[in-house]
């Protein structure tokens, strides 16, 4: 803890029109890190970014930059640059003048500007685009101009507000790799906002999972995926089967009517817990080889694997397997101790259940409404 974080947010609270967006928010970001703020829309991640950029004033709490309080420093005096969601390029300037904007404002010489712009355009692979009209560029090219424009100022911290949201899948993958490369080359601290969990896992050093204006978990991508802290994180990051369970003893959990050996400890005896099992960790075996067995209710081909929904005593499990299973067949589910992850109960427990499909629920609703109608008719 000796090292001063480049950005620190302390006890931040923000509300818009009486609605709390961030509550008692604390975050420390080390220099040179690639940090991702990940969460569903409305979780306060963009607001957090705008506080660092200086566009939102927190109602409470302090913002520090290299240990200095910058609450009242206006955006144009912060050593922080932003890549906006819709790029926000200046439509009246060409590519060169867009990239040169920040340096001109800072009174750099035209000679210096020229060489920096050239370097920046080279870095984002836009050589020869200097005199193009920005309105005629494709989304990916505009994106890269926005990156070059922000980096030309040599910021200490780069803020990226869902910069890849508007690009198609293939281009997004390329840009992810490119951004990661630029971050490693320049050593600039990146704070990246996204709702795409895959993007967050593949790019970041540290992921901050947010919901309802609060941090749910901070950790490396591996930690977040393998050791989710609560049902929200487990559900938001990847697919997961979340079951109600009881921690009978250290290394022994009971769920789905069975006892399983696991690798978690430190819970009270017989403490109710949430159990997470990732669909790709489950091995499919013959029904008599495992205490868990059920009937396959649906199989979807996903390219890399099949997504198999299995009904085990009313609970629908999701399994990802490269082997095809016949719909209606009976299979066994085999779990290894380290496939099982135990979480403490939280406010999210029970909100994310099994893989009962949307259409199943619809069927039930339709049946229920038909029943009600029938009852009403009886009354008449």
């Amino acid at each position, binding site marked *: 803890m000796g090292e001063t974080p480049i950005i620190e947010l302390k006890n931040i609270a923000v509300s818009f029109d009486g609605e709390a967006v961030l509550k008692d928010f604390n975050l420390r970001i080390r220099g040179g890190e690639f940090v991702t703020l990940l969460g569903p829309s409305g979780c306060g991640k963009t607001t957090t970014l705008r506080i660092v*950029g*200086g*566009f939102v004033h927190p109602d409470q709490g302090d913002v520090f930059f290299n240990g200095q309080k910058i609450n009242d420093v*206006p*955006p*144009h*005096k912060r050593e*922080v*640059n*932003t890549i*906006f*969601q*819709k790029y*926000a*390029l*200046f*439509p*009246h300037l060409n590519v060169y003048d867009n990239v040169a*904007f*920040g340096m001109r*404002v*800072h009174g750099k010489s035209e000679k210096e500007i020229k060489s920096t712009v050239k370097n920046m355009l080279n870095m984002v692979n836009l050589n020869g685009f200097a005199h193009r009209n920005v*309105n005629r560029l494709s989304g990916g090219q505009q994106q890269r101009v926005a990156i070059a*424009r*922000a980096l030309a*100022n040599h910021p200490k911290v780069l803020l990226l507000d869902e910069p890849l949201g508007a690009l198609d899948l293939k281009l997004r993958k390329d840009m992810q790799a490119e951004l990661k490369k630029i971050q490693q080359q320049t050593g600039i601290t990146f704070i990246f906002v996204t709702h795409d969990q895959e993007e967050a896992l593949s790019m970041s050093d540290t992921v901050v999972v947010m919901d309802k204006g609060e941090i749910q978990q901070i950790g490396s991508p591996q930690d977040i995926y393998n050791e989710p802290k609560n049902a929200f994180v487990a559900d938001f990051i990847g697919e997961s089967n979340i079951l109600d369970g009881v921690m009978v003893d250290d290394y022994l959990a009971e769920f789905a009517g069975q006892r399983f050996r696991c690798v978690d400890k430190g819970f009270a005896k017989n403490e109710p817990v949430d159990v997470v099992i990732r669909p790709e960790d489950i091995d499919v075996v013959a029904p008599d080889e495992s205490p868990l067995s059920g009937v396959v209710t649906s199989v979807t081909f996903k390219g890399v694997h099949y997504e198999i929904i299995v009904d085990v005593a009313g609970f629908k499990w999701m399994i990802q397997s490269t082997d095809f299973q016949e719909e209606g067949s009976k299979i066994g589910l085999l779990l290894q101790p380290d496939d099982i992850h135990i979480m403490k109960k939280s406010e999210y427990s029970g909100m994310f259940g099994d893989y009962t499909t949307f259409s199943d629920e619809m069927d039930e609703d339709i049946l229920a409404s038909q029943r009600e109608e029938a009852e009403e008719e009886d009354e008449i």
Partner: protein
Amino acid sequence: MFFLRSIWLGAIATGICLLVGYPLAYIISRTGARVQSVLVMLVMLPMWMNFLLRTYAWMTLLEDNGIINTALATLGLPKLHMINTSGAVVLGMVYNYIPYMILPLYSALAKMDHSVIEAAQDLGANQRRVFTKVIFPLSMPGVISGITMVFVPAVSTFIISKMLGGGSNLLIGDLIDMQFLGSAYNPNLGSAISLVLMVLILICMGIMNQFDDGETRGGGLMI
């Protein structure tokens, strides 16, 4: 003489409209949605009244024994000679045509993407730089159409100059008017002057459009 005076007074009126109208349009575009619609309605409100009536109202205000001079006299201040001056003509033009300046400016400013302004701040531009480097250039289409919409009717007006300018401040419009309805009945000459006026206006508009680089990006209306 008529031509020069028309263009000179029209240009002054247009300049004043721009100087007064731009800040107003900017303020309107930055207020909340509900206040905005009320303010836009207030700008339009005088246009619901007849043009002649409004100009007559200014006559009674500006006369040597009019409301303003009566008020000055009761306060013990010296009287001002206002009616029948070129200043009164310019005032009449500004008053009558300023909504045509504010509305295109307002629509250009209101449509501007706020994130572009934030991007400029983010890159280190202070408020003055944000305005001169981003907001004003992006509102250029609105400026151009505002200037056109004020300058063209101001140059060719004849009612305002007749009523507020007296006999000494006749404009090109008055000259044309006289050829058709006045004492110097000569429709042929009147038509010829109209044509010359039209060519002059087209030249002025052509010069102004040079300031815009040929691309209308979400600005107001172009004539």
